[in-house]
């Protein structure tokens, strides 16, 4: 497992004080956006980030 490439996302949370999750003693960092199978998800579960990413420059 690669903890450098593993992240945690908490959907629909406004709290900045989220409990830390650990893998083998290593804390996993929280993220606001995560790309999964080519689709960009954000913590509020709207598709704006993904749409912006797909828009041509």
């Amino acid at each position: 497992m690669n903890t450098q490439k593993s992240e945690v996302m908490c959907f629909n949370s406004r709290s900045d004080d989220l409990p830390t999750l650990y893998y083998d003693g290593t804390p996993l960092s929280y993220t606001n956006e995560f790309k999964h199978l080519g689709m960009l998800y954000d913590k509020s579960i709207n598709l704006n980030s993904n749409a912006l990413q797909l828009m041509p420059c």
Partner: protein
Amino acid sequence: MQPRNYIQVPHVCTLPSFMTSSRHTIPYPGTNCGNTCAAATSITLHPLRHTDEYTLLDGDKQVSVQPEFGVKQGCPLSPLLFSIYLNDVDNVTEGVQGARKGIPNFTVPELLFADDLSLLSNAHNQLQTMLTKLRAYAHRKSLT
């Protein structure tokens, strides 16, 4: 801890670690690899054990190497071998409550596609349990 109205998702990347697994941990034909696909796994993994691979410079073969770790890069069999090897990864979510959806008594504890694994739960402690079990699973499978 009370379940909350949000979903936590750790996205775990497994493939780079699989690439560092010793090929000697991959079972030979006739050995028990410990999952339901033992026979298929043993047969399909056999070609991995005796392969010559080369370093390439400008497309030309340079030095012959015999790698002892991971699956063969670019081989069509590699994704299949990886899937078979990780066939029982969903054991890490057994007995743990996944993320609740709109359907009563229906939870989604994981999303697995190729080397990407997402664990889902509404409760932090449930998620930590999954990660702890995943650590034990990874250790058992030499995915450390």
